[in-house]
């Protein structure tokens, strides 16, 4: 490689490093805004603003879903295996909504620190399988964790 080419390659490399650094620092500074939702732990700690619309995400707690017999109103808890937060919602839930499934809810926090949702989205996980396999795994108690936090605290035992 001629010295001139080497120099050009170095310049390009330095440019990439510089820009990556700038972008990395910017994204790091903005991470609070880039995160799509607040985890229940953050809401319990009071990190989520009360005066404006927020999104809360987590796994629907097994056995927590209570439906009002006379309306569409439904109340359920989501968890990150650390804290729970209660969510109320009065519209039609997505097909994929079920206990043990990850969801993201858009809404306001009320005075009891419960989220009054205006929209509930189901969050799919990375596991795919045919129904028979799912049945077999469930019977063996080896179903994968559907929590959006499964990867983040994979060292925890739960």
């Amino acid at each position, binding site marked *: 490689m001629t010295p001139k080419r080497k120099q050009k390659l170095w310049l*390009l490399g330095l440019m990439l490093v510089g820009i990556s650094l700038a972008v990395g620092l910017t994204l790091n500074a903005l991470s609070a805004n880039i995160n799509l939702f607040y985890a229940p732990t953050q809401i319990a700690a009071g990190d989520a603003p009360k005066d404006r619309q927020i999104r809360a995400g987590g796994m629907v707690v097994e056995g927590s879903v209570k439906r009002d017999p006379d309306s569409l109103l439904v109340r359920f808890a989501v968890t990150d295996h650390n804290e729970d937060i209660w969510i109320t919602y009065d519209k039609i839930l*997505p097909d994929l909504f079920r206990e043990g499934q990850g969801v993201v809810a858009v809404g306001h926090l009320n005075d009891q620190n419960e989220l009054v949702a205006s929209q509930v*989205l189901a969050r799919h*996980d990375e*596991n795919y399988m045919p129904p028979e396999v799912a049945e077999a795994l469930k019977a063996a108690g080896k179903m994968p964790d559907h929590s959006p936090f499964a990867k983040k605290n994979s060292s925890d035992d739960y």
Partner: protein
Amino acid sequence: MWKWLKTLYHRLGSPKWFYQITGSWLPWFAGAAVVFLGVGLVWGLAFAPADYQQGNSFRIIYIHVPAAFLAQSVYIMMAVAGVVLLVWKMKMADVVAQSLAPFGATMTFLALLTGAIWGVPTWGTWWMWDARLTSMLILFFLYLGVIALREALQPQEVAAKACALLAIVGVINIPIIKYSVDWWYTLHQPATFTLTEKPAMPASMWVPLLIMLLGFYALLGWSVILRARAEVLKREYKAGWVKELLQRK
């Protein structure tokens, strides 16, 4: 092997050789694309088992994942071609970069479109400004920027350098797309396939997906060679061998 590759690389650097060598590759890429895409589509859409939660709507993965994969790898190829142009001044690298851009843009659009169609029944929304979706949209705009920049600048050499630089700078977006689902809380699920772990999917589901991916790559090869050959003729129209070629036909 290494020596053979090096000779091939240098030969492909000459427009005349490029045109002559790649002519015989075209039917192979086209044939592979037809076979792989045909087998993959029929297998994936008709014979692969339905997902236990999403049912049949998961089958859009057979288009969505290869399209998203190609969208990113085509961009990396474009950036590598940019480095080759800027450092080694190989003009054919620019021809290849120019031929890659429309295919990459199409793949990005396809990934966004199929994701939106899948999002409606699965998530309950077709769009969400989460990190994965937004960074993918930025990739789409980067492709459009590279294509537009080439049309906006004159002469060709200046446009080529500007496009190469934009492609190289934009490559920073690729790791952001890849790791967005790990770095931040997103609506989009984390990757089903990683190099280090077993896929979170049985073989009856991922084998047709792999075939589709090969089919997309074959389609890429066919499309890029076809475009690059046309561009070579356009750029070298004054050269003796092009005139000879055109007179012969």
